[in-house]
């Protein structure tokens, strides 16, 4: 049989530096490296390499690097090498192309075309090292009016709220799609940081009930692991209607990953495929959603805010408007760059819209309708840095969700082979010897470090804008200016062009 595919990447080993310690060989689950005893040297098979950089990072003498192989077909502006390779793959396998993580294609990244303001002369920047700088947020619906008792005292009529030390949460990644140790890292980091993490649709491992006050439990179309104890263990409940990486389709965790505790936590037999249907089969319309929202509220005594998570799609503003009237306390919107453990490549790369536009549209629409206070808006789908957080809040988000950034903090190198199940970094795998590569003591600390750093940066950016409380940044679009954007894009984002 002809092998049509030439490796995209090539491992370059500097034999002057290689001491044949074999750490690369021992650490590669894809069996790329091999020690040749007779020659006392390590050789590699590039065709197996997924470019995850585990060997590169662990090589004690920096003898390894990975470069583009450079093998190319005849140049063609229409038929890229990638397109041709994909055809070879499908012609060989007859299967749907699969990918992990978010859409990597060259669509505009609006965050990179938005710039922040700073105070000069007419009002002073505020130094976060000298003055209090508040990043605390409270998510949830806000009542229409103040109520008082017969003595004139204000009655606390606020529906359940989520309190966060900063406008940031870890978004849904199921136990099963990521490892036990990755989950433990997220849970412990969320606790230490005073934020929340999200179970995803795989249920909540019994070991993690202790982190319940910092946990969002998800109810997805497969209803894996959903029971009253699970719902009540949480700080909030999220109904997952859709996901940015694969709007409109369900999920499929192969039976090979449904082992031991994962099967138990998901409440399904070991070895059975965990299939999440594309729709919730009890939600075919907005009025059905309202029923599920209230079912969950009934099950939890109206003590937990309910989030409805949707993928950013074309008519997102109308959908959001419907959700804001469904009794949900929060809307989570996942942009088309959002990550996933596995998605059909064509869907990941061609469905959905950028989160910046979806957010701007939804925030405006809900304000125009006077229902913005009915819900908080949480956005995810590629928040990559503290400045993305600041820009998202200024566009109108109450909080953001991060997931890919959190995985990267724990070691992920975005090799996008999560679906292979052999994550060398111990994140997207259930193979015990790989899972143990992520020591939660280190993983959690790196997450805490990352967000502590972001928090410092957010405070610095707020301070230079003369803002000392995050709520004064929310929807403050005058703090933003666009560059390299069309009038139409500026109009949708609700911002002015730089210089105007």
């Amino acid at each position, binding site marked *: 049989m002809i092998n049509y595919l030439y490796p995209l990447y090539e491992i370059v080993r500097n034999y002057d530096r290689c001491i044949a310690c074999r750490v690369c060989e021992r650490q590669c689950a894809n069996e790329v490296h091999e020690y040749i005893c007779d020659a006392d040297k390590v050789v590699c098979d590039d065709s197996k390499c997924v470019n995850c950089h585990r060997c590169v990072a662990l090589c004690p003498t920096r003898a390894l690097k990975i470069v583009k192989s450079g093998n190319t077909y005849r140049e063609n502006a229409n038929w890229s090498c990638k397109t041709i390779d994909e055809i070879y793959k499908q012609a060989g396998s007859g299967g749907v192309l699969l990918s992990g993580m978010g859409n990597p294609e060259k669509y505009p990244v609006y965050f990179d075309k938005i710039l922040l303001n700073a105070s000069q002369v007419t009002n002073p920047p505020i130094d976060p090292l000298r003055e209090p700088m508040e990043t605390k947020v409270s998510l949830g619906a806000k009542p229409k009016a103040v109520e008082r008792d017969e003595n004139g005292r*204000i009655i606390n009529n606020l529906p359940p709220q989520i309190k966060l030390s900063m406008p940031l949460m870890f978004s849904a990644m199921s136990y099963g799609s990521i490892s036990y140790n990755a989950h433990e890292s997220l849970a412990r980091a969320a606790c230490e940081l005073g934020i929340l993490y999200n179970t995803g649709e795989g249920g909540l491992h019994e070991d993690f009930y202790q982190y319940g006050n910092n946990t969002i439990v998800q109810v997805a179309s497969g209803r894996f692991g959903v029971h009253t104890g699970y719902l009540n263990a949480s700080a909030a409940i999220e109904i997952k209607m859709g996901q940015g990486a694969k709007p409109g389709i369900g999920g499929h965790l192969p039976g090979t990953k449904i082992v031991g505790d994962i099967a138990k936590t998901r409440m399904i037999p070991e070895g059975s495929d965990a299939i999440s249907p594309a729709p919730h089969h009890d939600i075919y319309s907005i009025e059905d959603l309202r029923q599920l929202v209230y079912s969950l509220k009934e099950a939890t005594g109206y003590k937990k805010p309910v989030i409805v998570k949707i993928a950013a799609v074309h008519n997102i503003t109308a959908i959001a408007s419907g959700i804001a009237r469904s009794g949900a306390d929060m809307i989570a919107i996942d942009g088309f760059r959002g990550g996933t453990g596995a998605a059909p490549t064509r869907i990941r790369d061609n469905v959905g819209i950028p989160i910046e536009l979806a957010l701007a549209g939804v925030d405006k629409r809900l304000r125009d309708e006077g229902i913005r206070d009915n819900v908080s808006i949480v956005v995810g789908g590629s928040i990559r840095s503290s400045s993305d957080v600041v820009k998202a809040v200024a566009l109108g988000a109450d909080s953001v969700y991060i997931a890919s950034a959190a995985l990267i903090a724990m070691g992920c190198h975005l090799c996008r082979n999560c679906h292979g199940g052999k994550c060398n970094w111990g994140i997207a795998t259930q193979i015990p010897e790989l899972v143990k590569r992520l020591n939660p003591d280190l993983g959690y600390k790196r997450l805490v470090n990352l967000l502590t750093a972001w928090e410092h940066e957010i405070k610095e950016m707020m301070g230079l804008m003369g803002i000392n*409380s995050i709520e*004064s940044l929310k929807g403050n679009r005058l703090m933003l200016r666009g560059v390299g954007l069309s009038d139409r894009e500026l109009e949708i984002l609700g911002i002015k062009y730089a210089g105007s």
Partner: protein
Amino acid sequence: MLREGEVRIPSGCAVSGIFDRTGGRMSGENIIKSIEVMHDRSNGLGGGFAAYGIYPEYKDFYAFHIFYDSAEAKRDCEDFLERHFDIINLSKIPVRRMKEITDEPKIWRYFVAPLPTRLAQSQLDEREFVVKCVFRVNTQIKGAYVFSSGKNMGVFKAVGFPEDVGRFYRLEEYAGYCFTAHGRYPTNTPGWWGGAHPFALLDYSVVHNGEISSYDANRRAIEMHGYKCTLQTDTEVITYIIDYLNRKQGLSFKETAAVIAAPFWQTIEKMPAEQKETHEYLRTMFASQLITGPFSILVGFEGGLMALNDRLKLRSMVVAEKGDLTYISSEESAIRIIEPSLDNVWSPAGGQVVQLTMNNEQ
């Protein structure tokens, strides 16, 4: 008319206020003198006054002060007013011709009461009905601008230095229990007559010194509640926030201050339980009404005056007392010029509300 962009870039404003807690009426002469001392804090692009208790004979009627750019605007506006209000009295506001004040629009005053039938049809309470009508005029009738709409009070403002504006409006001929004044050094709006301060809605009037950094967050939030920020000034949005919190949500001025210049979370943490709960509630419920960035404001209202600084105290403000009178100003000099021997002088802390009401001072 000078537009923003043609003027020098700004740095500040001056505010001053005098309040008689017995309700005794004084002439407008002193407030002009007070604001005149702070001449250098303005740049001649706007000045104005709010005076309370000046129309005792019409105290049950809304006093509309309106700028007209043209006779046509006046005709359209009066048509509108006649359809919605009983007009008890109308007249030109008397002014003194002077070389310092030019390009004045037509300035008219109406004492009105909502037509009972129209009011009933609208299903609104009376004050909300008046607010809606004021917004209608200001957004839909080209060349007409209602800049004062309260009972037994009036706003007088123009492009010019504030002391000239006071003399232009013959303020010394009015007598009231409370006056506030503003000298403007425009920051982010063109220096036109309507844009001068005070900014007023019903009997709320606000004079403000500062440039708030939360502006667009506040604006977009308040516009959701039916307000229209046509001037794009800080003062306008602050006035609407105060109207929303105090009139629509029924918060006291103290509670209002706890929203717009909220105590820091670290301060709230240390409060006694009941107080803590209230403050947590107010900050959570009205997060979008928190104002950050520098401001010092004087809020006039029927029977009272409130002064407030931003919570970091990024703008100056001095309070002084002498007998029944309380003076609040950007600078102590502006108080000393009219009352050299004071009983006491102090500076409120950032976020500390100073609320003056008749015979009940806090």
